[in-house]
Every structure is written in C-alpha cells, then in structure tokens.
C-alpha cells in the first residue's frame, strides 16, 4: 500500500501548477494601434526576438539579461539559429564580465572607504605629525607621461620607422576589427613606454574609414590629435625607398635572421580569424617587396596554434630586438600555450 500511496502523490505538481497564477500577465499595452503597418511589422518582429531571448533565458541558455534596442535589431537581422545563439552568447559573456568588474570595483571602494575612516581616526590622535624630509616631490603619473612623450618626440625626429599597414579594413569582420584596434592601442602603449621607441607610422589609413573611426572612438579626439605617431593616408611605398622595406608575414618563405636597424619593417594591421592565408603575402608580392617571417620554428618547439602573432606581441618582440636583445629574449613574448619551450641549441638552418 506504500507504493499505491506514492502513486497518488505523483501528479500533485500538476494541480499545484494549475492552481497557481501564471507568472506574467498578458500584454498590457494594446493601445498602440495608430502606427502604420510597416512599423507594426517591424515592432512585432523585434518583439518576437525579445520573447525568444526571454524564453532562451528561461530554458537555461547563455543569453544576456538585458538587451539593448540596437542589439535586438542586430539579432533580428541574423538569419540562422546558430548565429543568433553565438551573438547572444557573446553579449551574455560581455554582460557577465561587466557585472564582475562592477562588483570588484564596489568591493574596492568599500575597502578604501574603511581605510580612510581608520586613517582619519588615527590622524585625530596624532594631530600634528611633522612633515617628512624627502629628496623628491611625489612622482606623479603625469611626470612619467611627460618623459614618455619626450622620448616619443625624439623618436619622431630620429627614431627607426615601424609601419602598420592599415589597408585590411575590408578583410575583417566587426569583432575582428574591434580586436585589431585593441591590439593597435596596446602596441602603441608598449612602444611609448620603451626606452628607445620606434617612430610609428599608420600608413594607408583612410580618413573616415572604419579604422579611423574606431581609433578616434577609442582614443578620443584630443588624445588622438596629440598622439606622437605619424598617421597618413599615403602608402608606405611613397614614404620609404623600396630597398629599405621588409614586409613581415608568417606566410613568407624567408626567415628573419637578424634585426636590421636600417630597415623599415611593415606589419599588417589585421586580425585574421577566418584564416585567409596568404593575404599579406599577396600584397607584398604585388609590390615585389622583401618579406620575412619570425624564426619561430628555429627556436621553439612549436606545439599548436597559429603562427600569426598579435600586433602587440610583434611590437614587443621587435622592441626587444631593437634594444639589443637576442632571439630567446625576444621570443619570450610568444604565448607559452603555443610552444613547448626553446630548443637547447638554436638551429638556424640555411635559408635562402
């Protein structure tokens, strides 16, 4: 009879659900009848997209909790289910990171507040502490910035040029573009902080192109105008003699053996997630330029991953070489996950 009793219990959840009120009320705003058909249709597709996101969230899928009108439109424009899922996942992760950052900031602020209070209490006790005798005034960040800017200005007069070829706008998707701009910012930062910076050139930068717009957005108009680098619409071939130029690309057949202080190295400012092999090599071939790749295979037990490095990694490798570092030191900046360490004795095979 124990079993029978249990059997009776089994459908209790149905009666509970039936008796409970629905969680959401039916649509409350039906007063928007005065809009015309086209608009209404658009509204309804947007609305159904919003509902889709909501239902996916309830079903435990990775979707953002809040979605902006702009993102919703982008979502509606996507045609396949997988692209929608991917897009929502990206938004959800972004939202999550933002939330975590915010929480962290809040925690820090609370901590600081508590510390300040403690200090204030301490101050009241020993009210008149004598001033300390110091050799230097407080060294502010802006003093450091001034120093960096002096160096950058010097490099603009006498420094070795390093060119970022910005002609790959059309070959990148939007996420790729965003990460390319991030990498450029990072590279410029590393260059500025080095002891002997390169004279950076952003060549083929179309005014009001996507690259220009994104860079302006990230730097801000003022900082962008005061940046101590050369940005130009001109082609690098118009700025430098052909025999000085070396195009760095992972697809090249030639290995860069030594860093030459008289050459102008060119790095393609492109993030290539869709594996468009040979794109930059094709450009170099067209102009009949000397090309070279980093000697990754000569120094590293390559494990996995693409041999295309990020722009900031390239920058740090080149900076190290420029400052007289050897290849081992320079290739420290290759991500560790991509290789199993250095060869014991570097094998520089004879390369033509």
């Amino acid at each position, binding site marked *: 009879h124990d079993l029978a009793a*249990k059997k009776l219990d089994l459908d209790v959840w*149905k009666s509970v659900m*039936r008796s409970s009120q629905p*969680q*959401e009320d039916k649509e409350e705003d039906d007063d928007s009848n005065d809009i015309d058909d086209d608009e209404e249709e658009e509204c309804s597709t947007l609305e159904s997209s919003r509902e889709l996101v909501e239902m996916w969230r309830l079903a*435990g899928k990775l979707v953002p909790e809040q979605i902006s009108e702009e993102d919703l439109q982008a979502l509606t424009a996507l045609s396949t289910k997988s692209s929608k899922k991917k897009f929502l996942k990206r938004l959800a992760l972004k939202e999550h990171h933002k939330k975590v950052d915010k929480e962290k900031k809040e925690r820090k602020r609370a901590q600081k507040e508590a510390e300040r209070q403690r200090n204030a209490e301490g101050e009241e006790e020993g009210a008149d502490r004598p001033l300390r005798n110091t050799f230097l005034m407080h060294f502010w960040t802006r003093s450091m910035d001034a120093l960096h800017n002096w160096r950058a200005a010097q490099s603009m007069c006498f420094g070795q040029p390093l060119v970022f070829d910005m002609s790959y706008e059309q070959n990148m998707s939007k996420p790729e573009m965003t990460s390319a701009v991030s990498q450029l910012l990072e590279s410029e930062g590393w260059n500025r902080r080095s002891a002997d910076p390169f004279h950076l050139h952003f060549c083929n930068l179309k005014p009001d192109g996507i690259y220009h717009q994104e860079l302006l957005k990230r730097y801000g108009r003022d900082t962008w105008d005061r940046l101590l680098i050369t940005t130009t619409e001109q082609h690098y071939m118009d700025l430098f003699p052909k025999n000085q130029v070396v195009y760095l690309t992972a697809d090249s057949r030639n290995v860069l053996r030594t860093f030459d202080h008289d050459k102008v190295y060119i790095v393609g400012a492109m993030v290539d997630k869709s594996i468009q092999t040979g794109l930059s090599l094709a450009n170099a071939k067209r102009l009949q330029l000397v090309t070279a790749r980093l000697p990754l295979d000569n120094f590293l037990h390559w494990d996995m991953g693409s041999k295309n490095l990020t722009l900031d990694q390239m920058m740090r490798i080149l900076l190290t070489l420029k400052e007289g570092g050897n290849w081992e030191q320079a290739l420290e900046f290759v991500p560790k996950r991509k290789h199993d360490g250095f060869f014991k004795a570097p094998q520089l095979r004879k390369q033509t």
Partner: protein
Amino acid sequence: RYAAHKKKAAQKDSRRNERQPFSRSVFAAGTASRTAEFMRRKSGEDMVDQPVATSKGPSHAEVPDCPLTVTEWASLKQNSLRPHQFEVQMMKRMVAARSSIDIAKSLLTYVAVETGTLNYELLLKYLTLCVHGNYYSEVFDLYEIMKSHFKTLDPGAYSLFIKVFSTTDRWRESFTMLESLSKTMTPSPRNYGDVIAGALQHGDSTTAWALYDRLLEQGLSPNQDTWQALFKSSCSEHSHNERLRDILLFMRDNQLYPGEPLAQCISSWFESLPADNWTGSWTTAGPSGTCQCCGAALESIRLSEEEYGLLKDRVMRDVIMGRDVFTKTTPQELDRFRKFVESVPAFDVVLDGLNVANTFGKGKQSETLLAVATELEKQGLNILVLGRSHMRRHSHSWDRDHMTRVQQVAHCFFTDDISEDDPFLLYAALHSGNHCMFVSRDLMRDHKACLADGTTRCLFFKWQRGHQLVVHGYAPGRRIRFQRIQSYDTILQTDGASWHIPYDPQGQDRCSYEVPTTWLCLRRAGRPT
C-alpha cells in the same frame, strides 16, 4: 531475395578486399575508412576507439531508481554538492539515463510542494524525458500547463511538441506551432519533416506538399525521413506521382544519394505504380559501366562540351585568379603558363610532380617521379610534369640526372617556389581536353571549395572522378599500376524505361568525397524487350 543477394555481394566484396586492399577507386564508398584501418594495423597500433567518457567528473548523487517522497528528495538535495542547481541537474541526468517518468514526476512534485511553482527549464527537461519515452498524454498535460504559464515557448520546446503532436490526433495543432516557431527563426528541416509526416499520416497530402514547397522555398535541404514519408504515403494514393519524380530529380541535381531505407521506399513506390509493372532489384555496377542486373549502360562520366567549357572557365576564374591573382601566383607567371600551354600540343596526362614524388617514403623523390613518368611514356602518352622551381636544383632528394631524364620523356613546367602548383595542374588538364587525365593523390578538396557555387562543385567532382589517376602501389623496380577510373557516373539517372539509383547501404559510412557502390535498378517488367 534481396537479403540473399546482399549477402553474396558482401562476400564477394570482402574476398576482393582481402586480396588487394586498395584496388578500388579512391572515390568508392568506404575506401577512406578501410585505408585508415589498414594504416593503423600497419603501424602496429591496436587503437580501439576509446568510448568517450559520458559523465563529467565524479558523478554527485546518482539518479534514484524509484520515486521518492518529498522528504527523501529534501534530504538528497541537502547531501548534494551543488544544492542550488540540484533539480535541473538531476532532471538532466534522468534524461541521459532515460529514467522512468514516475521518478521525474516525484521530483516535480517535491519542487512544486516546496516552492509552489516549477520553472521553465525544469519543465523543458521533463518534456524531453516524456518525448523520449513516448508518454503522449503526459506531453498534452505539459502543453496545457506550459501554455498557461508562459507567453511563448522556446524553439526547443516547440520542436519537441511538434514531434509528438504531429503523430497524434491533435496533429493540426502542430501547424500553428510551426507558425509560431517561424516568427522568430527559420524552422529546421526536421521541424518541417515532422509536420509533413504528421499530415501524411492523417491523410492530408495537400497540406504536406504545400509545406514541402515552403521547405524548398526557404533553401533548406529536406531530410531523408521526409522523402521516405512522402514516398510511403504515395504507395496507396497516386495523385502526386509527378512530384515524386521531381524529388528524384532534385536528388540528381544536388548529387544526393538515398540511404537504404529510403531506397526501399522508392522501390516499393515504383512497384506499387499501377499499369507500369515496375520491378526493383539491388545490384552493383559492372567494371565496364553496365548495370549487373539489367545490363543497361550507365551514364558516362564524361562531361558534355558545354559543361566542360564552363568548368574550365570557372577553374581559371575562381581557383587560379580568385579574388587576388597574387594569392596563388603572379600575373607574369600566369602569362608564362598560358603561353606555354598554347605552344605545345594537348597533353594526354598531367603529373603533379611533387605529389607523385612524395607518394612513397622510400627512395629519392626524383626517382619515383621518373619511374611514374617513364611508365606513362611507355604507353605512348604525351606527358606534362608540373612542379616547382626548387625541383630543378640538385639536392639530396632531387637528383639532376633523374630530372634531366624526366624532362626528356615529358614536357615540364616549373612554377615559382612561392606559387601553388595544383591550380595550374587542374587548368592544364582541363585545357588539354576531355581525354586528358591527371596523376595526383591529392583529393583537391581545398580547390573544390574555391569554386563559387554548388553546381560547379558537383561538376568539378564529376570531372575529377573521371580524370584523376592515383598511383596504386609502387616499390622501386616494380611496375607502376594505377587505380581504375570508373567509366560511368555514380548519380541517380533514368532513361524513361528504367531508373538507376545509387544508395548508401545501412551501416556503411561514406566520406563526403566518396560515392556509393551499390545501386537500385528499377525497370518495367513483363514486356518483351
């Protein structure tokens, strides 16, 4: 009759395979998997595919094997490692283990009693469990409950409901579900297939065909199950015969092959046609390209003049030039190549120098190349060897004497070391005309992918199957042999009086670049020929 024939065919097949592991064409179904197996055994690895571990990490809390009371569930939850996700995780494990729904119900009861409501995710998982176990009345109850609690459902829930509703008396409701689903996204071919099958099952073929049209309009490729349902339902009712023929032609145009169950449905549909008296038999194709069953000649693998010209243009435009000529070559080189091709008479065979030379690990690369070239020259063929410039430089693996002799027996064209040689090979072979073969072990899949549209890719594949020679095994000093090229095209075909349909036998997996070797032969019987 069918089973006996199949068994005999299979025996013959296996005997032939034991004798010569690679005698069949590289494009015949099953060759890739057999080659992989052979290589594995050769390398001495007894690699049995390890079953993939199903459970992630140590399983916390097993699924109980009988319904639990509320208090029992409460204590189980308390002892679990992650109490905040306990219910959904438990339900997921029940779905994986295909537990009885009574256990799931007891879990739902526990949650409902504790919290007064059930969340969507939990209900969705429960729905999955019910659908897998075919508990229809439970699914109906769930539908009412979910409808009343939530404004809409997610695509996953819709798909599950469509699947169940279409097979029951409430099949008409699956149409509305399909409508709601298509508001947010394109329904999958499976969704359409379920609704179509439901409509057919309940005798509404007009709706089914209308939905089938919509499926095609949206650019989706129907499932084999959907076709199977359409053929099956038409066995008794013959109002849509023309449309079924269209399906067959759709398969032909898209180079699709039915699986064995679908082939059986097609066969029985033909046999059920009144008046015509069709008979279907399961067969293979003879080496000379005739059907083993009826002796009719199968369609030739040769391309028509028009197709050939189209393919040639496309290979030049999409594969060699692409978006940027500099990616694969340079305009100067392309010019040099064009002049070269026009200056010499048409070739009979084009060799992919590097690929042929690297076919066998033993011996010098140049030696292998020379052996293959000499063998072809003995057959009195006009040969072109395509290679890269570095092959001309004397080195350990590229002997200058060998290369000089290669140049004596064949025309040679060397591309820059930095260029790709395969596109030139394809163009040279196409340029020489329909009789020209090419020798390479490369399956040219990356070049096929460069072609812009599906039709041209099918055309390329057809040409490739008819013109690619693969060296069949070579040891220094022995005679070179090539794998046989099939003279017939493996594609669904008809000549009005008969149909020949290649199909995939059950239990055989076929790579994307392979074609089936088994055929369904349908012909009108009972008439003097």
